[in-house]
């Protein structure tokens, strides 16, 4: 305990030099801007920065890169809220209620609460990181493929049961997501699957491409049918970037629940941010008294996941601190840059260079405060964008979407995928098939299958591994409970007289 505080003090000494504070600001601002653009996520942001870091000392370099990293996380949800286009996978959930809020003229509150929730999540995550690293790291090692598979199954079930529409349609959506995820070369056997002879599909489908199609471009299609509909926006409230007291009060619970949840899931290597945000959304929707408001601009549905996402990025530092292993793709890029500066990441990095490791942790505390200060004023010009008429905004959204697609893989083949995904998205909406289970299954599909197969390899073919491991069993039970709960709810709904629209599901 004393050692921790001593180390934290050492880190603060490094983080609070004027030079490092300046780089945290520059990195945070650059990250926010890059994160706002569709297709450009934290990994690109950090990569763009690598040449600049050549001349820096390793501590400053890592501090700058991590500032870009969490800057991009703050920025990612800006685009979700404003144009329904998530900057990266962990910002998808911010679309669910953030964008409806913007359409209702509450973009200012949405942007403000997302910045505040990100800040709260980041701060709670940091505190957890400083005090609970050791026990949490020990827990993470117990997580084998069986536990991972069951956790993902639970995340998927929870998303299905809490999506709009019938559970059967949710399962169909999940199936479509898995189908897309299995296209390409199977890493385990090298077999080429479902490519229909198209070489460009061998590498699989980049879920970010599909996401840009499903959200940004589909949104434009939806507007074709309602071009002249004016959003119900109050001109006076539009410029105000603040959260009303009742809204804030509603957000406290979600933020306090989302943060520890995000932190714990972040510790597990893999798609932490995505699982954390989807699960936090599911939790909020199941604890609220008014689940019907979710998806129509409920502030809780934005605050919880935003906090979870940023707490998750702190959790992702745990494997880095204890094992010297990157917990996310962006962390891997950062480690690559560090290697070029002659610092080898590893479990003894913290003994050899405590000033680097703790300097970064302390700089994240500083950075969180700074990003809150960057993001709140930045919301003001962003909100003004809503005043641009749709007929001009829609072409710009299309331009950004296709450009962002190109930046993902520099592949023109992806332009075909984006267009098809957009059409599919439009048709799915018409059939009332929920999109979230499909997107989640597409993102987690590869990992779900791989952990399923790895579990069976380790258990020499016996399925019992899934219920013999206590953690795995716990997730399976949770998945079953959420399914039963949802079936019950649907039965009750069926007995009640319903409007023709609801009957269609």
């Amino acid at each position: 305990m004393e050692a921790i505080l001593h180390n934290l003090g050492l880190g603060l000494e490094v983080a609070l030099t004027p030079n490092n504070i300046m780089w945290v600001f520059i990195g945070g601002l650059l990250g926010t801007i890059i994160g706002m653009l569709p297709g450009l996520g934290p990994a690109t942001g950090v990569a763009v920065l690598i040449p600049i870091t050549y001349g820096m000392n390793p501590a400053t370099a890592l501090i700058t890169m991590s500032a870009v990293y969490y800057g991009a996380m703050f920025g990612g949800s800006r685009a979700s809220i404003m144009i329904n286009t998530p900057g990266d996978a962990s910002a998808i959930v911010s679309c669910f209620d953030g964008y409806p809020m913007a359409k209702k003229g509450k973009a200012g509150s949405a942007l403000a609460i997302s910045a505040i929730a990100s800040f709260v999540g980041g701060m709670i995550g940091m505190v957890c990181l400083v005090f609970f690293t050791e026990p949490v790291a020990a827990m993470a090692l117990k997580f084998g493929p069986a536990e991972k598979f069951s956790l993902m199954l639970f995340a998927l079930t929870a998303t299905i049961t809490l999506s709009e529409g019938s559970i059967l349609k949710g399962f169909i959506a999940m199936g479509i997501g898995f189908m897309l995820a299995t296209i390409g070369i199977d890493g385990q056997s090298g077999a080429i699957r479902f490519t229909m002879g198209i070489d460009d599909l061998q590498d699989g489908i980049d879920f970010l491409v599909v996401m840009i199609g499903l959200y940004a471009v589909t949104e434009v299609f939806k507007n074709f049918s309602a071009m002249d509909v004016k959003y119900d926006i109050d001109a006076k409230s539009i410029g105000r970037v603040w959260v009303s007291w009742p809204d804030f009060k509603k957000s406290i619970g979600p933020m306090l629940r989302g943060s520890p949840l995000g932190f714990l899931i972040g510790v597990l290597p893999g798609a932490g941010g995505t699982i954390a945000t989807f699960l936090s959304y599911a939790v909020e929707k199941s604890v609220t008294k008014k689940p019907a408001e979710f998806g129509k601009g409920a502030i809780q549905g934005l605050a919880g996941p935003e906090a979870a996402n940023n707490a998750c990025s702190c959790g992702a530092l745990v494997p880095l601190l204890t094992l010297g292993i990157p917990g996310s793709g962006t962390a891997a890029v950062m480690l690559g840059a560090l290697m070029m500066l002659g610092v080898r990441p590893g479990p003894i990095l913290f003994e050899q260079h405590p000033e680097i490791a703790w300097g970064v942790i302390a700089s994240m505390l500083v950075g969180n405060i700074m990003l809150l200060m960057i993001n709140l004023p930045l919301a003001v010009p962003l909100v003004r964008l809503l005043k641009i008429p749709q007929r001009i905004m829609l072409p710009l959204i299309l331009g950004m979407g296709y450009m962002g697609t190109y930046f993902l893989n520099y592949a023109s083949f992806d332009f075909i995928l984006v267009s098809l995904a957009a059409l599919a998205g439009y048709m799915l909406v018409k059939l009332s098939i929920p999109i979230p289970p499909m997107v989640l299954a597409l993102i987690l599909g590869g990992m779900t299958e791989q952990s399923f197969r790895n579990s069976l390899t380790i258990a020499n073919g016996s399925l019992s591994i899934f219920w013999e491991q206590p953690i795995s069993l716990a997730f399976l039970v949770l998945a079953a409970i959420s399914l039963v709960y949802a079936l019950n709810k649907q039965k009750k709904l069926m007995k009640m007289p319903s409007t023709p629209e609801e009957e269609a599901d």
Partner: protein
Amino acid sequence: MTKNSTTGWFAVVLGAFYLFGTTLVPIFDAGDQTGPRAFPYLVSAVVILSGLGLLVKDWRSAKRVPFSWGFSTDRAIWLKILATMVAGIVYGLVLDSLGYLIATFLFMVAVSELINVGRHAQNLVIAVAFSLVTFISFALILKLSLPRGLLGGILPF
């Protein structure tokens, strides 16, 4: 057809198609015992069963509201969607040869004309501004690689 029966049939057909695809996946000696087919089999089972479930639910349902894609009633919208998709695909096909600036300009003109009907001057300004601003900020400032294409030799930067 109702919404549910359309969805049901769609799921059954898609699942069957995928199931057929799964039987074509090659199996090698190496790799794991579970193999590359097991997971796809599970997925097709889930999709087909859910589709059948929806069909059963639909047959039992008392109130059945007919569903239509609106290909004839909303013809203009579907044509616009089709045109946007074609513009996007063509954009990708010509991006490398024409270069980012020209291709993006053409794409923006095309989609603006589709959406912002009739205001040609405004659309030209938007297209020029968008392609220039993005090219300068990404290719020149952030140094991401964008194809230079036809203008490659002429560009002063």
